């Protein structure tokens, strides 16, 4: 009896998941069709539903970015592309579109080095660095009492040590770069950073739709941001989309 109930539950769950995926795929296809016929706003709706119904994927995020860009939502387009870029940093279409959008945003994506950090994020360094670090540490442990100064063991240990140091350096630089690179995108028109985290505060400087900023501090619904020129100001959190590192 219990076995039969279990099998039945599994079938129901499987069907449910299949239905959800089918709906998401259907929304994805409808989004492409609407985009192709120039109905960008409708296309944005379909891609957003595909994102909500199914799990995020590079294709959905990328296409959503395109649809938003053609719909005039530069900031939201950049946010979608950056999320897609997180998953596949080296993909040419994503990079090309991001460059296109950033060229249209004054004070765009910040310095060039931040682009390199995005292409080689810490997770790209982490596994090789961890393997190298543990291997080197094991070799060091094994070689503690080994008198093999000129031998092969010592030579390989030195090479592995050099590689480990380089990988750890790369990981550290990438991690530090990620922490200081812009991690949020301004969305919407007429966004202005304020001197303090209250509505009554004076406007410090305007921010264009799509400007990429770094979130410095979060205080309730307000966030303190630093733009690419180093200006510091406060924004309501709803006016930016934060991109996880």
């Amino acid at each position, binding site marked *: 009896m219990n076995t039969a109930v279990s099998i039945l539950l599994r079938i129901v769950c499987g069907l449910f998941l299949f239905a959800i995926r089918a709906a*998401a*795929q259907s929304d*994805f296809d409808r989004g*492409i069709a609407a*985009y*192709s016929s120039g109905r960008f706003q409708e296309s944005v709706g379909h891609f957003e539903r*595909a994102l909500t119904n*199914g*799990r*995020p*994927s*590079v*294709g*959905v*995020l*990328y*296409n959503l970015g*395109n649809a938003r860009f*053609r719909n*005039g*939502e*530069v900031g939201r387009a950049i946010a979608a592309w950056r999320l897609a870029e*997180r998953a596949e940093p080296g993909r*040419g*279409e994503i990079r*090309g*579109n991001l460059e*296109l*959008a950033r*060229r*249209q*945003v*004054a*004070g765009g994506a910040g310095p060039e080095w931040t682009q390199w950090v995005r292409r080689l*994020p*810490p*997770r790209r360094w*982490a*596994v090789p*660095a*961890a393997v190298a*670090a*543990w291997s*080197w*540490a094991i070799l*060091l*442990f094994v070689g*503690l009492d080994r008198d093999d100064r000129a031998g092969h063991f010592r030579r390989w240990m030195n090479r592995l040590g050099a590689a480990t140091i380089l990988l750890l350096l790369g*990981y*550290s630089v990438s*991690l530090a770069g*990620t*922490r200081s690179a812009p991690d949020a995108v301004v969305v919407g*028109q007429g966004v202005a950073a304020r001197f303090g985290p209250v509505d009554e505060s004076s406007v410090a400087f305007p921010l*264009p*739709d*799509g*400007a990429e900023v770094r979130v410095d501090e979060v205080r309730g619904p307000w966030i303190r941001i630093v733009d690419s020129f180093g200006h510091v100001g406060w924004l309501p959190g709803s006016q930016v989309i934060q991109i*996880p*590192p």
Partner: protein
Amino acid sequence: MRHRDARCTGLRALWTCILAWGLQTVLAGATARLELDREFMEDGEVIPMRIVVEDAVPSAIPSIPNSQILVFTESLGQEQRQQILNGVSSFQVVIRYRGSLRGTGELRIPSISVPTSAGVLRTEPVSAQVLATEPRNDPVTLHLYTARDTCYLGETLACEIQIQSTLNLREATPHKMSFDGFVVGRTGPGISSQVIRDGVLVGVSASRQAVIPTKEGDLVLGPVSMEVVAEVGRRRARSLIDDFFGGGAELKRFALEAPGRRLKVLPLPTAGRPADFGGAVGRFQIEATVSRTNLNRGDAVTIRFLVRGNGSFDGLPSPRLVKAPGLQTYPGTNLFEPADPLGLTGTKVFEEAVVVDSTEVTALEFQPFSFFDPQVGRYSTARLKPIPIQVVEPEAGGEATAAAADPSKSAAPEAVRTPPQGAGGLQPLMPAAGPAISVDSAPLDSEYFGLVLLAPFVGLGLFVGFRGLRRRRNRRQAPTRRHLAEMTLRDQQAALRRAAAAGDSKAFFDALSALLRQQVSLSLGLASGASLTAVDVVDPLREQGVSEESIENLRRLFAASDAARFAPMALPDELATWLEMTERVVGELQSLTRESP
């Protein structure tokens, strides 16, 4: 081998880049220029020249090369100047020269390398006109010069007015000049200098003026007239007050006049005149920038045209957009930034507002900009490449959604533009959604993952540290010879007591013999005490401050232990007495041993 060559070449190129960058950085603020006082000179003059170096110190005085006209130059030394202008401090070193002119024609001094503390600086080439010597009967004369006798209609010309005097000038009225047929342009600052002509020092005051002929044919620029007061001689002073107020000089008023210069003004040729020619005369380069390229229908953008070069900027027409349906243009402001005092070279900026009222406009195209180049006597046309734009319908409610300004979008004629790919340069959609991804923060991107990387080294460090600590502790706890000896002593004392308690006289005296020798050897710092006798130890122990009573007791104990080897039997009471004596002696020896270092 080839790899090594390639690597060497690469490294050399890298070093060259680094050096060039460093040199450029160092030299960024330092400049050097060669200056002449006048643009028009006469044959036979000895003229002053100078090289002005700013924000650097010359390490050597460069030489000015001779030419057919400049036959002899010599350096007169250098002087330093420090000045603060508008709060900005600058440092100048002026190297003075003089040179002799022989012959007539264009004096052209090429670029000169000036070695300085900031590297080698180069001056720009300079040129001047050397004219034939005019006969002079008066000590004060007025001259009017122009660079050419022939020019084109609308061309800007520079003329120079010079007062040359062998006398000391006291006063000068402003000159009067006829400009019939010309438009007067900018006036340059007056410059005074001294030249040597036929061995006589001549003071020269020069001022420059830009003029533009407005009609063709033979025109006369000038004449120029003015009055000056000069000192013609010194009379004997009648008093000190006369001298103080300059009364000792004899003054004379001179009415000066320079004849007008005849200029042949040519009309602009009709042959080869482009249809779009708007009257620009000069040699120009143009560039256009647009404030935004991603627009909503109905948005306005600002186009800036930059016209650089030399020529007549006053009546310069603005470059234009090609008229197209959906484009409305509104002329804006213009601004001229001259690069020289007369405004012969510089940059003129035109701004134009454009409203884009159609989504079908995909690019801003520009009309050709034609100008007449008087230096070569023919027309030229500069063309700007179209700037692609993207125009979309505004959102419902008319809210502006255009992206922000993009000053980098420009249409310089020399610039090579990448054509947009697909619609507006946007890459096409992806046909498949692809595998699912996580948009949350990845653990590998977290700084806590650094702990995983550091953990093996921390573990290794802890292991090595603990091992070293343990070794140190073991080493510290390892018994020394003295410590061993003390331990043996304690054991022997215990055995002695046990034997005394048990009444075992053989064991007692064996232990006594061993204990005494061990203790004495320890007290005297000897390696072994096995062969010691009472005679051997008495004197050294006495020297160490052992009491006579203890020495006596020690002698008795040695004797007893030696005797016991042959007759070890003793009563328990005797053993207790020997034990008490032994402990007293050993106690004293041990206290002395503890006190010794």
